[in-house]
């Protein structure tokens, strides 16, 4: 019998180790697996974290575990949380390396990483610093550059409902990067609001088929309600 349910967060994420690369779902923290992220703090260091915005890692207690950040949204959020003053300093001092990637290229790199496509050309960021030092090429009169697929050792994602086979459904805008990252990691670990019986998820609306999922852990949705990351400035 297929059973991907783990009884605790610690068991589900036991093998995240020093030097791991970890993708983390969520958009500005919405739909992020905050409890999985929280548990990662202090367990492993020298991590490469791959997340849309740093809102996805707001539950990280100790930012010194980060070695490298691949993300599309960093600076604007650094002032939001007190702990992040330290992250800002580490970035400024080069202790955390940052690779900034515009969101569309970011998600396409991950999608191709999970789909066996090694590289693609994109027009987004051509003639800006995002295309600097990359191979450029004109397609139909438009400058593009080559972007490479992106994969990770682990993907931490959050789903609304999951079954023991790893089938997942997301809710509203909490979907975002989650289903794409689920495809692109060696081990995909899911924090699910609710575990349902096999057959309860509508087969036409199973956003992530179980084939992409390795481990599922149930976390009461109340615990996922971290404070909103961003105030209008």
């Amino acid at each position: 019998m297929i059973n991907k349910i783990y009884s605790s967060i610690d068991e589900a994420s036991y093998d995240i180790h020093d030097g791991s690369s970890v993708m983390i779902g969520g958009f500005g923290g919405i739909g992020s697996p905050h409890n999985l992220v929280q548990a990662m703090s202090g367990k492993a260091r020298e991590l490469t974290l791959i997340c849309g915005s740093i809102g996805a890692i707001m539950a990280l207690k100790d930012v010194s575990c980060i070695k490298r950040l691949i993300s599309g949204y960093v600076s604007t959020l650094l002032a939001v949380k007190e702990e992040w003053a330290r992250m800002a300093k580490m970035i400024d001092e080069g202790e955390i390396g940052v690779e900034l990637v515009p969101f569309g290229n970011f998600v396409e790199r991950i999608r191709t990483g999970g789909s066996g496509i090694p590289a693609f050309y994109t027009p987004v960021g051509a003639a800006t610093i995002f295309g600097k030092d990359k191979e450029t090429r004109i397609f139909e009169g438009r400058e593009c550059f080559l972007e490479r697929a992106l994969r990770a050792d682990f993907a931490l994602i959050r789903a609304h409902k999951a079954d023991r086979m790893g089938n997942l459904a997301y809710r509203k805008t909490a979907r975002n990067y989650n289903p794409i990252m689920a495809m692109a990691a060696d081990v995909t670990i899911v924090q699910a609001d609710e575990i349902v019986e096999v057959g309860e998820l509508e087969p036409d609306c199973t956003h992530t088929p179980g084939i992409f999922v390795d481990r599922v852990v149930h976390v009461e949705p109340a615990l996922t309600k971290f404070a909103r990351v961003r105030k209008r400035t």
Partner: protein
Amino acid sequence: MQQRGMTRELMCMRAGQELLDKGYTYVNLGIGIPTLLPEFVPQEAEIMFHGENGVLGLGRVVEESEWDFDLSNASGEPVTTVPGVSYFDSSLAFAMLRGSHVEASVVGAYEVSEKGDLANWQGPGIRTGSPGGSLDIAVGVKHVIAIMMHTTDEGKPRIVKQCSLAITAKGVISTIITNLAVMDVTSQGLILREVAQGITAGEVQVVTEPKLIVSEQLKEIAL
């Protein structure tokens, strides 16, 4: 310094008019001020607002106390949605932008040049940045409207001859709506089309770096 002219809400209202005038149906709202916009467009118009966070059919911003934690606009704010709303993953959200399915976008900006170059991903003195979806919008969407304060808090022009900040994309802004004026980017240069109530063309020129072409039909913004 207290900024003159329109508030953010009035700027959004004016941007909403622009969308209605053009008859757009699918309009992206960039992170920041633009996400306030749905409140200022009648729902019967059925403009389907796109959020790069994976939603088509954004409504107005609501109080935090009403918040469904699984739903926000691209700025991370609690919102309502309109009938016909759909949710999708980030891959599809950005395909809608990059693939030019979205007809127009309203974005915030630090600077816009007279040629329509946009700088809105990296603030002054910042080492990293927050490109987010701004480059996808700039590259994929045909009509990009910038909504911005005309000057910095210190009174420095943000509509410039050449962007001093790192650019998002070249020549992508068609329309600029500020607290003081509405301008069109054309091959002839920036055309000053409308001014805020109580503001003169001359006053706008003083805080604008490039020379403005004052439209013969120059009028006051009517909301």
